């Protein structure tokens, strides 16, 4: 198997991805250690969350990431039209994530629950909203990738920009994959 020395996409995005992941790692560790001093309260609050909505969101992001992989694969085969369609699919699934998350936030706020309710909700809103903003950023990047694909700026020989965008999107997916069990399932 032919191995590359550096990962796909612009190297700068990998530095950015590592920095972002380290920030999330600190948040995760802070959540977990704070929880260890307030186990009962964290567990009781966690039970008020809707794990079905979280499941839909997790499946949406995983599907979106898969579509992004297929977009890059299509471009590698010089199929720009297919690449564009896969990117639209990825964006659509990203949109599903955002809508479901907003529905969840609305449910909590209308029930009088907010960041000041207790420590668990402070973490819940902070962590998920920080991630939410990363999804928005990822969708902006994927949209730019889709426009450039449509404009014929990528080819089988030149798709570094596309890989840069999709790798950022996968990072957003990886973060949620840890967030989902940590906030909704583990107790």
């Amino acid at each position, binding site marked *: *198997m*032919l*191995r*590359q*020395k*550096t*990962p*796909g996409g612009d190297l700068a995005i*990998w530095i950015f991805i*590592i920095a972002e*992941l*380290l920030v*999330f*790692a600190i948040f*995760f*560790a802070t959540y*977990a*250690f704070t*929880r*260890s*001093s307030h*186990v009962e309260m964290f*567990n009781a609050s966690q039970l008020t969350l809707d*794990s079905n909505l*979280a*499941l839909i969101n*997790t*499946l949406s992001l*995983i*599907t979106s*990431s*898969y579509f*992004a*992989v*297929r977009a890059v*694969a299509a471009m*590698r*085969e*010089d199929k720009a039209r297919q690449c564009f369609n896969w990117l639209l699919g990825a964006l659509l699934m990203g949109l599903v994530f955002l809508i479901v998350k907003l529905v969840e936030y609305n449910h909590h706020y209308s029930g009088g629950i907010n960041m000041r309710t207790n420590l668990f909700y402070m973490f819940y809103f902070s962590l998920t909203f920080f991630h939410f903003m990363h999804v928005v950023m990822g969708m902006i990047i994927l949209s730019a990738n889709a426009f450039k694909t449509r404009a014929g700026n990528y080819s*089988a020989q030149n798709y570094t920009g596309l*890989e840069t965008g999709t*790798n950022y999107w*996968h*990072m957003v*997916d*990886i973060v949620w*994959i*840890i967030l*989902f*069990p*940590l906030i*909704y*399932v*583990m*107790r």
Partner: protein
Amino acid sequence: MQQKITGIRPCTWVYLLLMLLTLLTWTVGVMGLNGLTVALLVLGLSLIKGHLIGDYYMGLKLVSGGWRWVIVAWLIIPGVFISVAFYISGGG
């Protein structure tokens, strides 16, 4: 020369596996299973999912040297901290 893809792509198998592991994690939550062992098992499944995304979706499987393990290295950091914190609290 472009290699013609036949059959199901590895990324599709990985996608199906990720969906399956997600459903498994969700089932644990819905069934109300808790405790240290369950928590660590669920965390382990998530770390595997993260590794699969790094390897197959981000293409790190095809990279040599330190970059190959960048996502694995990151997964270990929150993985260890979360495990220790849950161990301290006894899981449930």
